[in-house]
């Protein structure tokens, strides 16, 4: 069952010759064939290309290339459909890109290649990463493997589903307001959002440029540390990338969190927090305390403004970022009598409802006469929110909270009520506004058998502490080893 392995388990077996990359890749492909019909995690995948990469990895290993030189040699990694892979479709789960194939690799794709990974699959997502349920995909929703009537979370829903359902060993997603952490929590895997500037955004189709960050979804915390070590680092092609040295993240996984100070924001005791979620989070916090962490109540006074601030800044940036999709140079085109009519027809037909809603919102908040009241004010509030966190991090090393206020809801339950949907990002969104790092780790199940997630937030470039604490917690539980039954 090589597809059920973690990265560290698989690379051990590959190194010892117990398995080949072809075995592992074929196992993933078989698993996709068996279960993805009901999950819809993959928008597309190219088995021949994946196996060819696997064979190349096996050949490299046979010729003496070591796992130290290439930490992901032969490991099948799935990619969210928003990250460019040369020669492969890049649709962002939207109709508007038509049959577009990317003619270049994202920086993270290159880094995965250099590390020897088998890069395969285009993972389902909310169109242009706009959503919290993967219901906004133009190619049908992905489904939660624990209960296929439920959403898997989003926007990186496909990436989370594929990891949890063992259709790949690990995957990449992107997180603009919780899009890695929230589906990881709702599917029961680990999801890491690195600090803004930690991972290059070159080749990540932008939703909100000042908030977007690529990160891994994995079966355990060690794998998240391995993946981050591969994809992090300086990239001259991304001006917002920070040339901070990349530490050995796996070396931080000591299990020792004695004296680590963890903050519990009093503002996160919100109405609508599901009692089961609260109970699971409290238990996880108690476990961390038992391991030697010190808990403190902290205050993040501007929390209540986070969602409003986010939906102004993110939509403003998105309204410009998505302007390039009009069918002139690439993607789907609906002809018109004039360039303007072609533009309207193409965008009208190509974008889904939620994308249109956000483009209109973003266009509105940037409009002459409204800019100061909305966009400029939102930027000021964003600074206050960031300051809240920096103040808190004067006193604590990490902040703990639930990842989501509720377990996975039913498909269709909130799709008619965008505002309710937006509120499901309440615990994850501030991390992006403040440029922090954050992780979600499995911390239990609801009575209905749906996974729940513990979120830990760290200082900018504080991934080492974040991973250490998440790993220490994971060592004391078995949640991450649970797998849904799928037939």
């Amino acid at each position, binding site marked *: 069952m090589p597809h059920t392995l973690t990265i560290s388990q698989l690379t051990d077996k590959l190194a010892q010759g117990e398995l080949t990359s072809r075995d592992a890749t074929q196992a993933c492909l078989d698993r996709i064939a068996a279960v993805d019909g009901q999950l819809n995690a993959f928008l597309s995948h190219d088995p021949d290309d994946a196996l060819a990469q696997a064979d190349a990895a096996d050949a490299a290993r046979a010729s003496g290339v070591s796992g130290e030189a290439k930490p992901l040699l032969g490991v099948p990694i799935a990619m969210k459909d*928003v*990250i*460019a892979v040369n020669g492969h479709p*890049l649709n*962002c789960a939207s109709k508007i*890109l038509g049959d*577009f194939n*990317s*003619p*270049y690799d*994202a920086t993270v794709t290159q880094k995965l290649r250099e590390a020897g990974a088998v890069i395969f699959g285009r993972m389902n997502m909310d169109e242009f990463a706009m959503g919290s349920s993967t219901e906004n995909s133009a190619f049908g929703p992905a489904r939660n493997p624990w209960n296929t009537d439920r959403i898997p979370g989003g926007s990186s829903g496909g990436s989370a589903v594929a990891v949890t359902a063992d259709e790949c060993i690990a995957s990449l997603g992107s997180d603009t307001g919780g899009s890695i952490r929230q589906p990881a929590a709702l599917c029961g895997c680990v999801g890491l959002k690195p600090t803004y500037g930690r991972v290059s*955004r*070159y*080749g*990540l*189709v*932008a939703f*909100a*440029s*000042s908030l977007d960050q690529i990160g891994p979804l994995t079966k355990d915390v060690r794998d998240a540390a391995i993946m981050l070590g591969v994809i992090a680092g300086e990239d*001259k*092609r*991304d*001006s*917002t990338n920070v040339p901070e040295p990349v530490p050995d993240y796996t070396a931080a996984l000591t299990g020792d969190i004695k004296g680590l100070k963890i903050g519990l924001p009093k503002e996160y005791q919100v109405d609508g927090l599901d009692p089961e979620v609260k109970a699971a989070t409290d238990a996880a916090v108690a476990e961390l305390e038992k391991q030697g962490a010190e808990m403190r109540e902290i205050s993040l006074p501007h929390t209540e403004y986070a969602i409003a601030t986010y939906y102004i800044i993110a939509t*403003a*940036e998105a*309204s*410009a970022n998505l*302007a*390039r*999709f*009009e069918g*002139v*140079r*690439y993607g789907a085109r609906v002809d018109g009598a004039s*360039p*303007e009519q072609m*533009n309207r027809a193409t965008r009208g037909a190509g974008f889904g409802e939620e994308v249109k809603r956000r483009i209109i919102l973003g*266009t509105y908040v*940037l*409009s*002459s006469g409204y*800019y100061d009241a909305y*966009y400029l004010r939102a930027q000021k509030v964003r600074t206050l929110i960031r300051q809240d966190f920096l103040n808190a991090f004067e006193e604590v090393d990490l902040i703990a909270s639930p990842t989501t206020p509720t377990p996975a809801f039913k498909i269709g339950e909130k799709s008619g009520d965008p505002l309710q949907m937006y509120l499901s990002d309440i615990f994850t969104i501030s991390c992006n506004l403040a440029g922090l790092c954050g992780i979600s780790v499995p911390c239990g199940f609801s009575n209905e058998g749906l996974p729940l997630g513990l979120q830990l937030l760290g200082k900018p470039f504080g991934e080492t502490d974040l991973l250490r604490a998440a790993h220490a917690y994971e060592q004391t539980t078995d949640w991450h080893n649970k797998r849904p039954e799928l037939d």
Partner: protein
Amino acid sequence: MEYEAVIGLETHVQLRTRTKMWCGCVNEYGAEANTNVCPVCLGLPGVLPVPNAEALRKTALTGMLLNCDVPGFSKWDRKNYFYPDNPKNYQLTQLDFPSTIEGFVEFEFDGGTERVRINRAHLEEDVGKSTHFADYSGVDFNRAGVPLLEIVTEPDLTGADMAYEYLNALKAILEYGGVSDCDMEKGQVRCDVNISVRPIGQTELGEKIEIKNMNSFSGVRRAAAYEIERQIGVLREGGSLVQETRRWDDALGITESMRTKEDAHDYRYFPDPDLMPHTPSDEWIAEVRATVMELPLARKRRLMADYQLPAGDAEVFVGDAALGEYFEAAAKGARNPKAVANWVMNNLQAKLSETNGAVADVKFESSAIGELVGLVEGGKISSRIAQDVFVEMFETGKAPAIIVEEKGLSQVSDSGELEEFCNEAITANPGPAEDFRNGKEAALNFLKGQVMKASRGKANPQMVGELLKKILGS
């Protein structure tokens, strides 16, 4: 009532850089359509811009040449509008924190010196070029992402001719600075003209009319002249003007309305989140400042002062910078720089154009022309011989004194020898000799010419004249 015009210009100039503003594509004109393109300048999904350091330097340099400040903080903004030639459908530009601010340009106009204030010179990116065919259009993105400088004046220009001279002065500065080739044919300079008129004495400005996308300076002059007259005409007839954008029809020689303020674009500017602000260090600014060169007007004034050149000569050397530099090298230490200037402007330039050569190819030392002038002025050779010596210098690179020595071209100043030549000329030409004796002064020149001819140009002409007079008068 008398009216006056108020004009401000926004001039877009393509910077001369090796590569485009945000990517590694070559910045060149005339390549086959869509060959100098990449994912970045085509605006493909997922790409990010990286600023071109050379463009940032040339922008700062331009600002310095325009007497602008170079602030320690500038940033990039997105200007949102849809057009098929605009790959991202937003243009990166600098809205409220431009790279350079608050300078001025001085230029000569109408017998005096004018100063036009520069509001800013900011950096942005050019867009692609649309071509319209019978039933479809094509876009060439080779130009998309070429660094474009926008130089904005204050409304300090008062007429069409003045606007024209400002543009010429600006072009000269940009060419001198090596920041742009300013090739109008290649669309490297484009201009938006803002014009209003008001009764003389009124301080507030009239309704502003913008004429977009002018691509020749003479067009700007004609359009401005037309527009001033049109606006004054409307007001005189009791009409009123509204703020609007107009288009210049060069063939008809008129402007026509494109759109009024009501349907103006809302560009929804906001700071580009993909680019960090540009915060040049003092060292960086100092490095750029060290490359600032002398500007045309300053150079003209200096050439006139330092070398006692007339304005016309100085303009020749300002207009052709290489020739000007050559002149300064040649005139160094020369006692008569004006004579050196004549040699450079006349003989050297003629020879260079005859041989299709450049100043850099001149074989003789830069000091040689000064030496040649010295030989003439010292009476060592005649001006006539000097012409031959120059040709020899140009061909062989030898020093003038060596040529004179080798070819025995020294002027004959020995009175005995000269007297012999004079007597021979008088004997051979009794008629003119008689004429001179009868008071016809011009006859002397004929005889003098005969002597010069007989001496093959080597006779000292002044001594010949004196000797002839002496012989004929006795």
